[in-house]
């Protein structure tokens, strides 16, 4: 077995057969981090001590024959999941020294399952961005080509898995922040149904859209991770109460007869021609597995980007109001009065992209503009939900591209917001509707990975994972590894 590219499922066997200890596995990953992290910059914080003691504990549990699927598996967590006793920065100067006195439900569940958290990963500031260039802790490099971006906002989580600096990671997706970096780094990434995973302890960007999910090397790993992340949490009122299926037990079902919807709108807009060809090929593979391709229309999809860039900034303008320099977080030097304390703490503590979105959101909610912006965006959102409800009355899954292009160069889109926002043109609709969606590797374009997006019906993560797994049984794109960074 090649440890560099081993999946959770493969490592499980080795750990259980005692061919490898959790401590050895942890050491192996920290050695790789020592070597490649200076180039990749995937981590904001490394948790060597707690990881080691978690690994020691995992070995005891394995020895006692009480291991779960995740016991001893080295993972990384996006740095917006609060973990008691560690720093949680959300990629911002505002929280560069912030330590929460509580642990996110997701992190708690993964820790309870025995996963070994190696560190907290770099991200776009407050999860706002599609390239990881808005992080206060510097940009993350794409392991496939270090002159390119890994995508964002979960760029550190994607790069860490792709560069072999952990086995799997957690990300969060508000408009595409799991799926887009997964596509650009050649990973499997899943954004669950809104409410499937608790948001408690997860630093909010846009509350009605934020959803945590796994970033992994295979659909099977994503199923295993999600089983341990999902579930009702009384601390989150928007969390769903439905029981969590054993996703990993439903992967082997053949997909013969499955109805897969193809929305031509995905192929008409900004999609790169080479990517389009590759995606069509992926669709024909699904067809060869017995699935039926059916045309579906999502008539309001073209309005999704506009609606998203009103709703998400509006929510973030309120969610980020708490960072005022008073109780915790960054405070400006020598404030002269209250106004000065607010103004300078926020002006100095937030980066450009965050400030831009706070301003846009504040404007969209202002008296006299609310109806034209926020009100109308909510209407569009309802129409998009309706589109999906109708589409899923005809098909089981909708398939298409995750991103318009493969990874772009560092700095290439940083100056043009609209160009950057177009990265999420295919992912945003599922976020607005709250349906689950994932990205799986669908080949290379000029040596760079691209992603096939699969969108599912509400709470039907099981079908998504089943299709993804079947696809991965006949393709090997997900097993390709990025070249070793210098």
């Amino acid at each position, binding site marked *: 077995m090649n440890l560099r590219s081993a999946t959770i499922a493969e490592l499980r066997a080795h750990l259980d057969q005692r061919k490898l200890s959790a401590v050895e596995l942890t050491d192996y990953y920290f050695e790789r981090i020592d070597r490649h992290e200076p180039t990749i910059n995937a981590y904001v914080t490394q948790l060597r001590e707690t990881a080691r003691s978690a690994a020691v504990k995992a070995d005891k549990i394995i020895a006692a024959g009480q291991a779960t699927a995740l016991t001893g598996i080295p993972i990384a967590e996006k740095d917006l999941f609060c973990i008691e006793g560690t720093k949680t920065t959300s990629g911002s100067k505002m*929280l560069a020294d912030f330590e929460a006195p509580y642990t996110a439900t997701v992190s708690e569940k993964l820790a309870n399952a025995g996963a070994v958290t190696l560190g907290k990963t770099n991200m776009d500031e407050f999860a706002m961005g599609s390239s990881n260039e808005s992080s206060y802790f510097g940009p993350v490099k794409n392991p496939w080509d270090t002159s390119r971006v890994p995508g964002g906002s979960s760029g550190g989580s994607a790069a860490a898995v792709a560069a072999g600096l952990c086995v799997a990671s957690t990300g969060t997706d508000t408009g595409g922040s799991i799926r887009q970096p997964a596509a650009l780094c050649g990973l499997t990434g899943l954004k669950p149904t809104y409410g499937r995973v608790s948001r408690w302890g997860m630093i909010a960007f846009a509350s009605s859209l934020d959803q945590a999910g796994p970033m992994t090397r295979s659909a099977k790993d994503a199923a295993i991770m999600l089983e341990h992340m999902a579930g009702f949490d009384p601390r989150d009122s928007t969390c769903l109460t439905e029981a969590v299926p054993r996703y990993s037990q439903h992967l082997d079902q053949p997909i013969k007869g499955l109805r897969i919807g193809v929305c031509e709108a995905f192929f008409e807009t900004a999609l790169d021609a080479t990517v389009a060809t590759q995606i069509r090929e992926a669709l024909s593979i699904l067809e060869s597995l017995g699935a039926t391709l059916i045309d579906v229309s999502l008539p309001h999809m073209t309005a999704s980007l506009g609606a998203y860039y009103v709703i998400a900034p509006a929510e973030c303008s309120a969610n980020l109001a708490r960072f005022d320099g008073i109780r915790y977080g960054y405070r400006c030097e020598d404030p002269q009065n209250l106004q000065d304390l607010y103004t300078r703490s926020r002006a100095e503590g937030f980066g450009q992209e965050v400030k831009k979105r706070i301003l846009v959101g504040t404007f969209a909610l202002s008296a006299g503009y609310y109806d034209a912006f926020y009100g109308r965006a909510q209407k569009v959102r309802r129409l998009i939900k309706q589109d999906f409800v109708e589409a899923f009355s005809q098909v089981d899954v909708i398939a298409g591209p995750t991103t318009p292009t493969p990874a772009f160069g560092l700095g290439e889109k940083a100056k043009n917001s609209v160009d950057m926002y177009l990265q999420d043109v295919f992912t945003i609709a599922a976020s607005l509707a709250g349906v689950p969606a994932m990205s799986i590797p669908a080949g290379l374009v000029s040596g760079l990975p691209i992603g096939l997006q699969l969108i599912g019906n509400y709470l039907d993560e099981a079908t998504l994972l089943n299709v993804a797994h079947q696809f991965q049984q006949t393709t090997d794109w997900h097993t390709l590894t990025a070249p070793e960074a210098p």
Partner: protein
Amino acid sequence: MNIPTGWQVDIGLEIHAQLSTEAKIFSGASTTFGNAPNSQACAIDLGMPGVLPKVNAAAYEKAVRFGLGVSGTINRESRFDRKNYFYPDLPKGYQITQMDLPIVVGGHVTISNEDGTQKVIHITRAHLEEDAGKSIHDFKPTQTGVDLNRAGTPLLEIVSEPDLKNASEAVAYAKAIHHLLTYLDVCDGNMAEGSLRFDANISVRRVDAEALGVRSEIKNLNSFRFLEQAIHYEIERQIDTLSAGGVLAQDTRLFDPEKLETRAMRSKETATDYRYFPEPDLLPVKIDESFIDRIKASMPELSGTRASRFETSLGLPTADAQLLAGDRSLGDYFEQLATLSGQPRLAANWVKGDILSRLREQDLNISECAVSPEAMAELLALTVENVVSGKTAKAVFAALWEGDAISASTYVKEHGLEQVSDTSAIEPLVTELLREHPKQADDLKAGKSKLMGFFVGKVMQATSGTANPQQVNEILRAKLGL
């Protein structure tokens, strides 16, 4: 204060009532008053990143109780919104409140004016929201402290229509709401601890004007007296301004209780744009009929209904009925005693008489009454059956109150306080007395009825007060052939 001729006043009140729940509205932290600063503010109250609010069902229940109490409509689906503004004692930078879909819509209360007439005041809405913390400015000369103990305390904001026409109506309405809130156990009504705060919207207009005048909102009045004083000042200021040909600007004002005046805090133009939008961290709250039915079943009879029942079916005088029904616990005590003794009027006399005066003397609440309704009922039975005289009964009550007696009948027996109603014991005494005082006996016989008291007094003396005076009377009359 009289409103000057030619003018009329329109006042609407916004009353903020702290709900008497154990825990805060969106966190499990305690709502106890007066603890060390920030000792009962948890991560949610502090607005830490990543925390989420969760609605405390107890707060919802209290709001529904109030809604039912004013015969308002309970919205089966209500929703929370964010009200955005920056202030150091507002940890999240927004207050969670209810804007478009409040829990209670409509409703009314009836107030009694000084001249005895009654008036219905309409309630526009009542909505749930969280309280802010407190900024402490006298903490250090150059610094402001922030105490977040109060942050997240559940508030019910009760908004009235501009039905109030002068300060005394406004105060009567405020008192009626205060009474209802405490009666229904929705709010503890403790004004000193800030459990009830008023914002008054005041405007004036010419009597023939159809539209309401330009209003000023006086914020944060925390006593009935300040409410009255602020309204007086404001009416005068507005009428003076308009009479002098001036123009009023819609504004928000603060009342200075020392100078007895209001001062503008901000004008409409500089008013904060609160940028309300639906709170995405909370789902709309759906209430089912069984929740409302359960609360309905637990609602006490409202004091007005209870007073008329005391009057009509228990035969109490109006004043007694209103007094006893005015306080829920007092009414409960009275009703228990009335039922146990079967003597509602006697029970009413005891409660409003000896019991209330003892309670007032010692500044106690009826719930702290030293004599239980059961013990009182036993005492009442002794008087009804003529076992003890009214005077003795008062002495026995005192013994019960002081703890010298546990049971009225045992005490009476042990101290030999039974009335002597046995004619064979009294008759010889009367015969003896008539013989000893022949002149008085003759005068009495001749019609000097005052002398009846002389003989009764003598008998009472001889029996140490245990004789039944009624009976002594009868024996005397029989002997003298009156």
